[in-house]
């Protein structure tokens, strides 16, 4: 999923100039930030909570660990990581979008989670950390919005400690034909309608459906992680492959 030779990339089904994609994605998330959590629950019927639980269970996180929750948005993973790493650990909630970070920070502070969480606005392609900094890195439903995914994976590999692991939770491809048809119908008709009704923004949710279709499938993403340097990479499909959890280690 590299950029094309003529410096263009995809934004949903549209082809746009590479340097414009980040700001276009930013506009989408500025627009949906306030209603992000409620839309997540509505769109996934609450199942996103189970996908995220599984990600944390597979992270091997322990007290004292340093965790980077990339594209952390409104902080669902950060909230649990913050408790699990304890006072001696640290969680960095990173997102390229300041609107999402603000919503996340407010939500976590209101829940009393302070002390071991840092909020950093950052680009996943150029992580502003030293080499070998984190024990665990997660990126949940964020990689598909990154312009240069290979560069982002290499950057994650660089800042991961030897022995650490990366978890990529992302929409993927189902190989069940009936489910795929149902899912397409849901994504391109119901989803934008829900977006219009709840967040008054159908276009952003149309982009969501399109960007999922343009995202690399399970095997392609696995090979991209291998190329970035990760070892023992594997993935597990969830909900029939609609979502996949990829995992890779740095040794």
């Amino acid at each position, binding site marked *: 999923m590299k950029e094309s030779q003529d410096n263009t990339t995809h934004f949903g089904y549209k082809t746009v100039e590479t340097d414009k994609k980040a700001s276009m994605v930013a506009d989408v998330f500025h627009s949906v930030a306030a209603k992000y959590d409620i839309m997540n629950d509505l769109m996934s019927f609450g199942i996103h909570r*189970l996908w995220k639980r599984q990600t*944390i269970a597979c992270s091997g996180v322990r007290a004292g660990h340093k965790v980077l929750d990339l594209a952390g948005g409104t902080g669902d993973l950060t909230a649990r990581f913050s408790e699990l790493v304890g006072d001696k650990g640290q969680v960095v909630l990173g997102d390229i979008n300041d609107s999402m970070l603000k919503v996340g920070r407010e939500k976590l502070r209101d829940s009393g989670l302070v002390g071991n969480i840092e909020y950093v606005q950052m680009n996943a392609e150029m992580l502003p950390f030293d080499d070998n900094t984190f024990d665990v890195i997660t990126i949940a439903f964020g990689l598909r919005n990154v312009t240069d995914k290979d560069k982002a994976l290499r950057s994650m590999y660089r800042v991961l400690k030897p022995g650490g692991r990366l978890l990529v939770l992302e929409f993927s491809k189902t190989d069940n034909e009936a489910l795929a048809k149902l899912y397409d119908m849901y994504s391109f008709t119901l989803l934008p309608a829900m977006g219009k009704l709840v967040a008054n923004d159908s276009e952003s949710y149309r982009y969501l459906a399109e960007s999922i279709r343009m995202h690399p499938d399970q095997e392609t993403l696995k090979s991209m992680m291998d190329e970035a340097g990760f070892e023992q990479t594997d993935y597990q499909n969830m909900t029939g492959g609609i979502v996949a959890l990829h995992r890779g280690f740095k040794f």
Partner: protein
Amino acid sequence: MLASLLGAVLETALNKGLKLSPELKHVLSKGQHKVLSVDIRDQNTCLAVTYTGINIHVLCPFDGEADCSISADLPTLLELKDPSQLTALIRQDKLDLEGDLALAQLYSNALATLDIDWAEHLAKYVGDGPAQVAVDAFHKLAHRAKQDGQVAKATLTGLFQDELKVAPHPLEFQQFKQQVRTLNNQVESLNQRLSALLQQNKGN
């Protein structure tokens, strides 16, 4: 996904227990941030439990390092509500334990000390009198169900063992096990003798 759902349900129940039985926090604080992994053999599921000082977290399916790992089937794990059973179950080879034994004992003790005053909590919603009546009625019902269960079990045992003769009596079963053990020893001894004879034959 089912494992995640199971973890979520268990976690919610444990945290509810933590809220309703404040003693539990004190007991679990000694194992704060330590991870106990539980491999439920017959369900082919591995989960981990950790207390962070705020909440209990259940990680399922677990894939990480634990301070203590126990492995047993579900009925055996349910016996751990009685802390004195822990070492007995290990000795009987029903339960495997690796790592910090004290952590397993801590969680077993925590389950034993779980004492929720249901009447007190229910009284907030329906008042003292009705809450006590409801809790007493529930206890009576549970006691009755337990008694009925024991009677049904005894009746069915009698029916299958004595009347229909389709199930062995425990004593017959013990005798059969003893006979199998004796036969096994005899076969083992015969096997050794045959091996020795074969070696002798090769030597000649």
